[in-house]
């Protein structure tokens, strides 16, 4: 069996190869395009992995679903979670506070629309995106059997979207993650989306 370090190196190299399997042949000569223009219907299966974070918090975000490349929208089922316990404070009653360890989870339907305004010679595109995460949020706490702070909510966001290959897209933007009353709602959102595209 290979040592763990070698396996990790191989994994990283393979992952990088996968992302850049359709290389960026040229990033020069950008062509302005109509951000509201659409093509024909090109539904693809996609998966995404990302994170949203700020100075106080960090969540992973994974999803899979529909990637529509002609009309530039996505509908994904996502799961987000904080991978560690964070110390939070509840105001339980007047003059009574709890200091407790919290993890949070959110399951959401992610609706994303992209508006590309630049296209490059190799068909890579740059534009803006808007996203709505419509989902169910809850917190789990050390020492408590029941989850708390369950709520349904809408998490809006937006930012820059770069479709850098025929099967991958990178997004960087802002997400207003306001479901958790014990954390700053302003987060940075980074996301890598991969989709199966059999068109050359």
């Amino acid at each position: 069996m290979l040592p763990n370090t070698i396996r990790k190196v191989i994994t990283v190299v393979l992952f990088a190869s996968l992302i850049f399997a359709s290389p960026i042949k040229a990033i020069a000569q950008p062509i302005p395009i109509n951000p509201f223009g659409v093509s024909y219907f090109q539904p693809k299966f996609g998966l995404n992995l990302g994170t949203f974070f700020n100075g106080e918090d960090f969540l992973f975000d994974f999803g899979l679903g529909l990637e529509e490349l002609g009309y530039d929208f996505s509908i994904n089922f996502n799961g987000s979670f904080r991978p560690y316990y964070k110390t939070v404070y509840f105001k339980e009653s007047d003059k009574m506070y709890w200091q407790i360890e919290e993890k949070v989870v959110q399951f959401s339907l992610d609706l994303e629309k992209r508006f590309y305004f630049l296209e490059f010679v190799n068909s890579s595109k740059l534009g803006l995106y808007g996203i709505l995460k419509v989902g169910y949020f809850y917190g789990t706490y050390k020492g408590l059997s029941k989850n708390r702070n369950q709520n349904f909510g809408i998490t809006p966001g937006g930012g820059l979207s770069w479709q850098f290959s025929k099967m991958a897209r990178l997004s960087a933007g802002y997400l207003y993650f306001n479901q958790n009353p014990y954390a700053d709602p302003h987060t940075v959102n980074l996301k890598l989306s991969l989709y199966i595209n059999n068109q050359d």
Partner: protein
Amino acid sequence: MKNLFKIILLVFTITLLSTSCNKTKSDICDTNKVCYTQAPDELYVKLELSTNPSAVPIDVKFYIGNMDNGKLYDHFYTNNNVEYFLMPVSENYTATARYIVEGDTVMVIDSDRLSNQSYKNCEETCYDWDDEIILNLKLSK
């Protein structure tokens, strides 16, 4: 053909990612390694406390299980910064400590599981454990 290669690469990468993190001690076959064949029945739960800002003894409760549906095992007042309990393994334990901070009551809650792990060394079942778990009942601000 190129896309088939991409799909194979994707499947292979995901497979490798999923298998590269699950190496367990069951892979071990080392006759020189110390192997404890008996699991401990009891281990220590250590409670770490702050000094109460109001200088009165801290109200501490210790539960077997969770605070809201577990069994209250002990309730005491202390000025110590550390308390120990020798408790059976394979149970969750929760402790709470009440502090008075500027007229408000702050209850710190922490919980963990006292457990041991077993693994195979060659053909023998061995046990591994931490001597204690720590429940952090210190005020964090």
